């Protein structure tokens, strides 16, 4: 039996599945928004703002989900502050520690961007739009974008930095989740703006398709890296079927096909986006729960 089978499941279940999914979307959406801010046109601004609108609530929900998953939620702050000395608690080699700080940072920057975006459309004093514009905006976008990437990807690194079956039997999970976060972030942006057909949208569509192809490649490499001894007990069952149908077919291949053959007319883009989101969700479900089931 592979060594990872002598371990116990941490019982990370639905809270974490949703956290990984929503955190991925939020991080991906922010990263996309930041890309548009930093390198795009003024015409990209509505979509980038949409990215901020998604990112900040996403970060809040992520935080709540993470806290809810704790067995002692009232001690969530122990992640950040040592309860006995009140010094910061930070272990750079512990993904969960770094992740807590990363989520905090992401929440902070996405909040700034969120405020900036609201200022930009006049819901808040105009002066605050400087948070996403000019030099400060660059800083917020760069740091927020990086933390967004981090948030989307670290969850996979976290799973790999264990001794559990599947998770620790590969080093590709972080990349997979990152790519999936990016694609689902893009998909949500596409879904929410499906009526428009701006260059930004076209860019997003294009980008999402490429991302999905990358995701497929990463997934294949990941499964290959895990090895049969682990795959057989973990994925040669209903979970594997779900992965093939829900992720590979529904979440990746069909959206790609739709991109090249928009058979559903106006509904093609939102349909593809929904499928990508569904696939991204199922990916988290399968990757977490198939290992937990061992």
């Amino acid at each position: 039996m592979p060594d990872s089978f002598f371990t116990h499941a941490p019982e990370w279940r639905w809270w974490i599945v949703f956290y990984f999914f929503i955190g991925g979307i939020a991080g991906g959406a922010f990263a996309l928004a930041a890309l548009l801010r930093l390198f795009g046109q003024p015409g990209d601004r509505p979509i980038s703002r949409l990215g901020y609108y998604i990112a900040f609530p996403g970060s809040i929900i992520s935080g709540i989900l993470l806290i809810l998953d704790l067995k002692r939620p009232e001690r969530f702050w122990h992640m950040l502050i040592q309860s006995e000395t009140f010094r910061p608690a930070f272990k750079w080699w512990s993904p969960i520690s770094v992740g807590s700080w990363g989520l905090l940072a992401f929440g902070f920057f996405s909040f700034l961007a969120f405020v900036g975006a609201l200022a930009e459309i006049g819901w808040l004093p105009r002066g605050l739009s400087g948070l996403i514009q000019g030099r400060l905006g660059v800083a917020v976008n760069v740091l927020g974008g990086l933390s967004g990437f981090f948030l989307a990807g670290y969850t996979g690194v976290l799973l790999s930095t264990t001794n559990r079956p599947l998770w620790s039997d590969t080093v590709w999970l972080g990349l997979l989740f990152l790519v999936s976060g990016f694609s689902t972030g893009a998909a949500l942006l596409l879904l929410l703006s499906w009526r428009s057909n701006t260059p930004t949208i076209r860019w997003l569509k294009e980008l999402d398709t490429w991302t999905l192809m990358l995701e497929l490649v990463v997934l294949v490499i990941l499964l290959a890296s895990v090895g049969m001894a682990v795959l057989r007990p973990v994925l040669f069952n209903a979970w594997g079927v779900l992965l093939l149908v829900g992720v590979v077919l529904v979440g990746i291949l069909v959206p790609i096909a739709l991109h090249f053959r928009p058979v559903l007319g106006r509904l093609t883009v939102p349909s593809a986006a929904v499928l990508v989101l569904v696939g991204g969700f199922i990916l988290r479900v399968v990757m977490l729960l198939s290992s937990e089931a061992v």
Partner: protein
Amino acid sequence: MAEPMGFFTDTSVCIGCKACEVACKAWNQLPARNGGKVQLSGISYDNTVELNGIQWRHVKFIEDFTPDRSTERWLMMSDVCKHCVQAACLEVCPTGAIIRTEFDTVVIQQNVCNGCRSCIAACPFGVIEINPETNTAMKCTLCYDRLQAGMVPACAQACPTQSIQFGPISELRQRAQQRLEQLHAAGVMQARLYGHDESILGGLNAFYLLLDEPGKYGLPANPQLPSRNLAPSAALSAAGAVALGLLGLVGLRKQRMDRLAAEERGQGEGSHAG
């Protein structure tokens, strides 16, 4: 710092009496599963089945018989937290709840743990679980409180056959080596030590004499730290982030090119790099 202390568990003399399990529960005031009302497991005489938050010692029973009984062995082993010198749980714990003590043992501070369970997933031996009464991660403390008072851990004191021996690691290693030689001399060539040297996680402060391969006892042959995956995993992710960023930039550049081309063709909207 005091001398490193630990357990040497000699499974060749374990009689599977489970005194260690109960002595542990009694000293640490751990509850029985479901108040003791549980079902027969059907796995030989093992009905506690695993180490977990309320089961810090667990006796395994392995019936090793050939159909003709030419081989007949009933292996028993009292399992416990290994108190690894390189402890996976300690490594990943984000709150600092898990500490290394002055005895070189690994202890989860119950007033700090917030139940994130990363230690559970990290432990290569499946030692840690949440205690449903406290909702914190729990495992053997090697009776930290007793050690500080100069007492022997409850399980080692209870063990009738000295299968569980407690003492300074250096001394235990010598004893283990002697016992191994004694068994080899007696023709028990399958006997081996597990975790007695640095090859496994820098050394297990609770190490074993086994009568067969580790896998037979449910022990990983080559347990590793979870952090082995951190750098490659993080590097791949970082590279992925760069790749995705570049992908986006390429797209944006293409978009701009398209736009400039369109502008050249007709009078399009002016653009500014943002």
